[in-house]
Structure formats: structure tokens, C-alpha cells
């Protein structure tokens, strides 16, 4: 009986919280939810910026989180195909099933690049619906923020005005920040980049970087020695200004190429928390641009 009482005490405060519980697949959407919702939101990200969001386990802790979520926000475009369907299936939460108002596929609100009709797996991990890493262009983030604010106001109608005003404030600060980033990043336009994985196409589009190669010969499969030596030959006399990888990607291939070609290798945070500087969404782009400016001199 005492156990039951204790259990009851444990459960009641959880139920009494008025917060909107947001479950995000990637840290950038949790950060965005916090920007818009502030104290009204309790956001939890399934992955950290040090994890590859393509490959994580559908862990029990995540199932428990989805069970209680009011809103699930994920990049989508099949980025989480290996684990999100299992989470949603096991979590028994009808309010966040795809197609319901409690589910938001962030990348569906923006124009996805590199969509393809060809789904031959011999070409590796390709996303037929387009590249899912949309968060690397702040213009995309602005669009998704608007959609998220609308969704939050709908799900938590009582506080709708708070979400609206917080969003308006965020949007103003964000546009100012974009203007600043674009001024600072002007020298990066036309710089040529080799990237580990095709994670940066939106950043490249935004800043005018030119992608001249990938360390992965086939997307999603680790870089091979043959492909790396080929890159070494191709870029031994320059031809590229920077080698980019994400924090969770093996540093060896980019270091290897850096040593042989003299092209600077740099780690860019793919999401909030990926580097010490990327403390929030503003810090994320500050840090990306600082690091690129430092590397692509």
C-alpha cells in the first residue's frame, strides 16, 4: 500500500506539469523549441550533436520520452528511418503519430535539395526525398521556426499569445543575425570544400561554397583507402580550400588528406552542442562561420 502511495506521488507531479513536452530527433529542433517556447516548453533531444542521427538505437529511454511527448519534431526525409519508426510504434502515443498535429517533419517545410528518383542502394545511403540536413541554412531555420510556433500555439492554445510574441522576438533577432553572418561570411563565397559526408549542401548553397568532393566514396559507407588516394592525387596542387567534417565523423580520413594536400581540415558543428562555441542556435552559426573563416584563409 505504501509503495502504491509512493508511486502515486511520483506520477502526480508529472501529470500536473503544464509544460508542452517536445521530443526532437536532433538537438537543433530542441534548441529552436526552447527559443520559441521558453519556460513553457520542456524539450528533449533524442540525439546529441556528437551522435550520427542516421544511426542510433531505439532505446527504451527514448520510447518512454515519446510516450509522454506533446510534440515530436524531426528532420525527416528518412534521416531517422532506422530508429524513429520503431520509437513511434513502441511508444503508444497517438497524439504524435505521423499525420497528427503533434508530429512535425521539419525538412518538409523547406525546399529539400538533391531529391532523386534513383534509389539504388549500390550508391549508398541516399535519401530519395532529398538531403535531410536542412538546419545548416539559417533561412531554413527561420521558415521552420514559423511553422513550429504555429504548431505550439495550436497544441497549447492557452498560451498561444506567448508563443506568438516569443516567436516574433526570435524572428527579429534571427534576421538581424543572418544579415550579420552574411556580411562576415562574404569572403567565403566561391571557396571550394571537400566534405566527409553530404551533410553541408544547405550551408554551401547559403554561403556560396562550392563542394568539390566527398571523403566518403559512397554516402554512408566509411571512406576507403583507394578513394582517399584518388582525392590526394586530385587535390595535391590545391583545387580545394577546406576539408569539412562533423564532430561525430572519424577524424582520420580528413587529417590524412590534410597532411598530404595541405588543405586545412576543419570540424564544423552540425547542430547545437557540436562544438564548445555552438551553445545555442545563434552560437551554432557564429561558430560555423568563425571556423570556416579561420580555415579557408
Amino acid at each position, binding site marked *: 500500500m505504501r509503495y502504491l502511495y509512493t508511486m502515486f506521488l511520483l*506520477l502526480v507531479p*508529472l501529470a500536473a506539469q503544464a509544460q508542452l513536452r517536445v521530443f526532437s530527433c536532433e538537438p537543433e529542433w530542441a534548441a529552436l523549441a526552447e527559443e520559441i517556447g521558453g519556460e513553457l516548453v520542456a524539450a528533449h533531444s533524442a*540525439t546529441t550533436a*556528437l*551522435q*550520427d542521427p542516421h*544511426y*542510433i*538505437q*531505439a*532505446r*527504451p*529511454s527514448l*520510447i*518512454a*520520452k515519446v*510516450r*509522454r511527448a506533446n510534440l515530436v519534431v*524531426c528532420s*525527416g*526525409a*528518412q534521416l*531517422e*528511418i*532506422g*530508429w*524513429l*519508426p*520503431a520509437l*513511434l*510504434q*513502441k511508444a*503508444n502515443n*497517438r497524439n504524435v*503519430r*505521423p*499525420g497528427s498535429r503533434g*508530429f512535425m517533419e521539419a525538412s518538409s*517545410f*523547406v*525546399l529539400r535539395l538533391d531529391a532523386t528518383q534513383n*534509389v539504388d*542502394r549500390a550508391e*549508398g545511403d541516399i535519401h*530519395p*526525398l532529398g538531403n535531410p540536413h536542412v538546419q545548416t541554412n539559417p*533561412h*531554413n531555420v527561420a521558415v521552420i521556426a*514559423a*511553422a513550429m510556433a504555429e504548431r505550439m500555439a495550436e497544441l497549447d492554445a492557452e498560451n498561444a499569445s506567448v508563443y506568438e510574441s516569443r516567436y516574433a522576438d526570435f524572428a527579429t533577432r534571427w534576421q538581424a543575425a543572418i544579415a550579420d553572418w552574411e556580411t562576415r561570411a562574404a569572403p567565403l*563565397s*566561391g571557396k571550394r570544400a571537400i566534405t566527409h559526408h553530404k551533410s553541408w549542401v544547405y550551408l554551401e*548553397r547559403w*554561403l*556560396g561554397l*562550392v563542394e568539390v568532393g566527398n571523403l566518403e566514396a559512397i554516402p*554512408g*559507407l*566509411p571512406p576507403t583507402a583507394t578513394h582517399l588516394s584518388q582525392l590526394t592525387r586530385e587535390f595535391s596542387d590545391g583545387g580545394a580550400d577546406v576539408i569539412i567534417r562533423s564532430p*561525430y565523423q572519424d577524424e582520420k580520413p580528413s587529417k590524412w588528406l590534410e597532411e598530404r594536400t595541405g588543405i586545412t581540415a576543419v570540424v564544423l558543428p552540425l547542430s547545437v552542442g557540436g562544438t564548445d562555441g555552438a551553445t545555442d542556435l545563434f552560437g551554432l552559426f557564429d561558430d560555423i562561420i568563425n571556423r570556416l573563416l579561420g580555415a579557408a584563409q
Partner: protein
Amino acid sequence: MRVDFVNGVFLFLVIGFSSGVLAQDSDLDLLRTELAELRSDYDARIADLEHRLALAEQNQQQASLLTQSSVPAVNIGSPSSNPGIGVIFTGSAWNYSANPDGYVVQGFPYGGEAGPITEGLALGETELIMNANVDDKFSAWLTMALAVEDGEAVVEIEEAWVEATALPAGFGAKFGRFFSSIGYLNSRHAHAWDFADQPLPYQAFLAGQLIDDGIQVRWLAPTDLFLELGGEAMRGGQYPASGAAHSGFGSYSLFANIGGDAGANSSWLAGMSYLDSTAIGRPSGDEDDPFLFTGDSRLVTAQAIWKWAPNGNWKEKNLILQAEYLQRREDGEYSGAGLSPTQYKVDQQGWYAQAVYQPVQRWRVGGRIDSLTSDNPGPAFDETLLAAPLNDPRRYSIMMDWANSEFSRLRLQFTRDEAGLIDDNQWGLQYIHSIGAHGAHTF
């Protein structure tokens, strides 16, 4: 186009200079540098212009996307075709030092499809999977197993279930034919196993895996700790049940699982389950002259799984520790195989423990011990396969596998078998490949 034009102009200039003027080497160098500078300057400006144009286009398109629909299509993991169709290919080459034809484990006559992997080169089960959402409240899953048995192609409906996806309050329900959620390994598809075969307790107590027709209800607690409770009612047509007792409500099960994370690197799952089944004339042992069991069969399982990966980055490096304990009590009557009907009441236990480690991408190594123990059913069963074994049946296995991608795996396995009548060394190669839609794997 513009780049080509500019390059053309440069080329023209270069040809003009080099043919018209016999310049000094130093002049040439100077010219080359200036040219290179000019070119990169133009390249950059052109790239900048193209980029600005692209951005403008993109913003315009995005604006139209936003106004068009506030509920865009959802593509989180849904297959690109409806229904999603996938095929799983398996096969093996297995070698035994003793002939596996008469393979038996003393005290544990196998039922159903339990038994050693086919000797020599052999096609395993080929599975055809189809799944999709039925509508906003149901989803459905079909697995057809295509196999060759005694030279004939056989199509079996392995799984065919419908799931209710819109139940309130954390409930979920599934009906049709499905893998029971008892234990840990029972509900895992063969292509997701870490070893080529099931451990001894699964072979002896569940004939490999329990699949039956029925209904399953699951409830998930609204807590940060993962807590899942569930139960199943089943027809009782499959080992360890038989004969669809109680008018076709022959078996039921209960299961409970808890789980969580331990820091950023580790996560765990632990559970218990109970299976109550009734058998009417259940065959086991020799296929042509089987033992027949009629009575109650109760099974209790306890299991724990620990998974570790640095920073939770599964792809690079990981470790799985897994162990299960199964206890069975059978109370009834054995006949057949020359036995006159004889009372049989026995407690039996089985367990396995395994570790699988992935030190680098693509490669994994693993080890497993599996074992059984049995009480003696009494002198009436002396000299039969049902008598308790002198030594606990036990096996030791090691394996190494290589996965080029998550869709292909090649495995080498060695097993020291001290469970059969003759101690045996077995080794084999196995392949598991899949094409098409592939369901996300659970923990």
C-alpha cells in the same frame, strides 16, 4: 555556360599572347600568375552571382511552399512505395564433425522446427515482408517465409498482424499471427540475431521461437523510466502448446519490461515474462514416431540486456551484453514412441549469456554459452530420450561477422556442442542480405 565563355576568352588571350609574342620566361610566369588571379577572381564572382540567384529562387519557392500547405506530407520513415516491400535472403554452409541427422538433446526432445542448421550448402528462409499503415488508426505487417522442405517449395505465413495505432492512454494492441513478446530473443527476427542459431533454451522450450495466432495488448507507463506491461491470448496451436486447447484459447502470456539509459554511453533493458500453455497430443522428438505430450506447460523468463557505445554513436563501436534465464514446468502425461501413457512432472531450466563487440565499423566478434538442466522425470522414463541427461547439455559458440552496410552481413561461427549425444565441433558460414523496405529495429 558563363564559366565556359570566360574560360574561352582566357584561352583565346593565352593563344594570342603565346603565338604573337616571344616573351621571356619571367614575363610568361608573370602573365600566368596574373591570368590565374584573374580567373579565380572571375570564378568567385560568378559563383557568388549564381549563389545569389539560387538563394533568391530558393526563398521564393520556400515562400510558396509555406503558403501552399500548413500540413505537408510526412516522410519520416515511410517506404517510398505503399505497401513497403522487402525481401530477406539467408543461407549457410555448415559443417559438423558428427552426422547431425540424428541430433537429439537428452531430456529435451525438440518440437516444431528446432534443431541443428542444415548440413552443407543450404538456402535458409527467404522472407518476403510487406507493411504499411492501413489508415490513420491501423497498420499491418505480413511476413511470408519461402522455404524448401523435402525438395518442395513451401510458402508459410510467418507473421500477419494488424496493429491498432490510435488507442488512448498509452495502450497498444496487435492481432493476427505474431511473434510472442515473451523473453527477449523471441520477438526478434532471425535476420537480427547475433548468432546463426537460437540458444538451447529457446530451442528446447519454444522450438526456436513462439509464433501463434492471437491478440496482444501493451501498456506503456507515462514515466521517464521505460515501463511496459503486456499480455497475450493465443490459440495454442504452436509448441509448447498444441491442439488449440480450451476451444482455441489455449495459451496466454504476461510480460513486463523496464529500461533506461546509464549516462551517454550505455542503455539497458530488463524484463520478465510468463507463458501458460496447454498441450493436447504435442509431438516432439522423432518426426515419424514422436512423443506425444498432453498437459500443462508453464514457462517463466527473466532477461537483461546492456548496450554500450561511446557517446551513443552506434555505428563506430559498440558492445552488447545479453543474458536470459528460462524455467519450465511441465505437468501431464507422455505417450507415443513406444511409451504407454505415463505421468510426467518435471522442472527444467535453461540459460544463455552472450557478448558481441564491434571494435571498428563493419566488424563484430561475439561469444555465447548456452545450457540446459533438467530434473529426472522418474524411472518410468529411464532409457528414453525424456530421462534427465547425465551432464547438463551445453554449447560454446564464437562468431565473427562483417557487415558492408546495414543491409548485408556475412558471418563465420564456430560451436563446440556438448549438448547432443556426441560432443561435436561445428562451424559454418552464413549470409543475411536484404533489399527493399526494411523495418526499423527495436532495441
